[in-house]
């Protein structure tokens, strides 16, 4: 009869055998190689296809297109923000009619394509020329730029109204009750207690909405506005040089990445009192 006389001494966990090459690493390296190859071929394309005449001809046009895009997006975001406030409050009101109208507005504008809305305003309303002339609004609907601005504003107002409503409703009810128990009037409660907390919640969705708007604004090039995309299409139709699209891609990526980083910094800065 044998029995264990001594316990096995405690041992460290077996060393993890790090394989030099596993499928994941191989795939990762292959895909990275593909990216590097792509980047290298893009750079090679730019260098071999470099044409100073084209650069001098279309470079300034790209810059002016960039200006148009930024102006369009900035204006429509600001005007959309203004328009979204009454819509958001109508959405939160107990009045069924008001609520229904705001709901229909938000639902319709959020579930139809921006391109269709733009066409509806530019070509659709533009077909009522004599009526618009008699009201004195023809100068507005004649210009594609104004039509783009109007459709973007209406579109982003619907999205921003939902963002604002969600943010205001995310403030817990106890905050309102706390303010009421302190005897604060409704307006002070809203401006000093609800809104600051709501806007922090809304910050990230607002950033996403601006980025979506920058990307969505490219459709305005279809109705003859020379924004960044419009200038790109113009340059491509003249030169049949594929680089035209690559430069546009660089510009758009730069805008979006800048916005993303600014927003990340803004959020870190504005929520620093919430960090523990």
């Amino acid at each position, binding site marked *: 009869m044998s029995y264990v006389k001594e316990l096995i001494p405690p041992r460290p966990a077996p060393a993890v055998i790090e394989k030099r090459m596993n499928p994941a690493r191989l795939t990762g390296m292959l895909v*990275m190689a593909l990216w590097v190859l792509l980047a290298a071929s893009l750079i090679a394309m730019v260098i071999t296809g470099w044409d100073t005449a084209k650069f001098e001809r279309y470079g300034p046009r790209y810059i002016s297109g960039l200006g148009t895009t930024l102006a369009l997006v900035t204006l429509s975001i600001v005007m959309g923000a203004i328009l979204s406030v009454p819509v958001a409050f109508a959405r939160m009101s107990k009045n069924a009619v008001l609520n229904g109208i705001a709901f229909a507005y938000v639902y319709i504008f959020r*579930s139809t*394509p921006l*391109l*269709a809305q733009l*066409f509806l305003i530019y070509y659709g309303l533009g077909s009522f020329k004599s009526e618009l002339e008699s009201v004195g609004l023809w100068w507005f609907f004649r210009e594609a730029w104004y039509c783009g601005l109007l459709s973007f504003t209406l579109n982003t107002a619907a999205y921003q109204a939902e963002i604002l409503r969600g943010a205001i409703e995310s403030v817990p009810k106890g905050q309102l009750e706390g303010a009421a128990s302190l005897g604060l009037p409704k307006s002070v409660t809203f401006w000093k207690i609800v809104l600051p907390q709501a806007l922090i919640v809304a910050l990230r969705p607002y950033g996403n909405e601006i980025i979506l708007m920058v990307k969505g604004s*490219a459709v305005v090039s279809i109705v003859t506005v020379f924004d960044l995309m419009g200038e790109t299409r113009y340059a491509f139709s003249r030169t049949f040089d594929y680089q035209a699209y690559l430069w546009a891609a660089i510009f758009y*990526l730069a805008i*979006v990445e800048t916005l993303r980083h600014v927003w990340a910094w803004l959020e870190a800065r504005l929520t620093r009192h919430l960090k523990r």
Partner: protein
Amino acid sequence: MGGISSAFASLGAFFGMFDPLCGPVGIFTLLGEGTLVSCGDAGWGDEIAFGVAVTTALALATLPLGLLIGFLVALAGQSEEKSLRLAAGIYTTIFRGLPELLTLFIVYYGMQILIQSVLGFVGYDGRVEINAFLAGMIALAVVNSAYSGEVMLSAFRAIPKGQYEAGDALGLGRGRTMVLVILPQLVRIALPGLVNLWMILLKDTSYVSIIGLSDILRQTGVAAKVSKEAFFFYMIACGLYLALAILSSFALRFIDRWSRRSEASR
């Protein structure tokens, strides 16, 4: 051959019965008789109905491709391998940052140039036309996958590590752990985000009208140009997109309930 084609024709006629726009009980047939949207040669009803079919087909064809690529991107994004994570990060950064329209043009003209140069290398020297449906499908799938990859990545992060360890403890292999343990939970967590992406995809299909595919917006646009009734036809286009969105929200509510069938009811 005649028998087969007539069988197909009768099959088409059978499904035509349920055509919601131009069928025997379609909206355009009932309400549009004698107007601009009547079905047949006189009106634009049948052309627009074809556009609805193209839009739906494009969206439905793009979705599985986008989800598949998105899943692979998410898988790469949560991998322990650094280079794989970096590669996935580059992919999402690029395709979430580019406007959908630009991606479409890059894919459409890029494919054309690529295939042309490859064929030129072989010795063929004709003009190459890329199928707009295919180009639209690839471009939309790429954009959709960049977003759905992010959604699934955050869903992956929401699944605790213990689930993988439980799979190991049961003796399941990696693939079976993924399919039997992780995926059912992943679907449930990612579904709300993916529903949003489906709605966005449905709207983004309108971009393919610009490269000449006969979708809703293209067909109504042609009708608007010919008949000079732009407001009426673009209203119809918006209404059709709205109808598609409402219909799919019904279907998605059903899918949502199905995905939660194993959860305790509250």
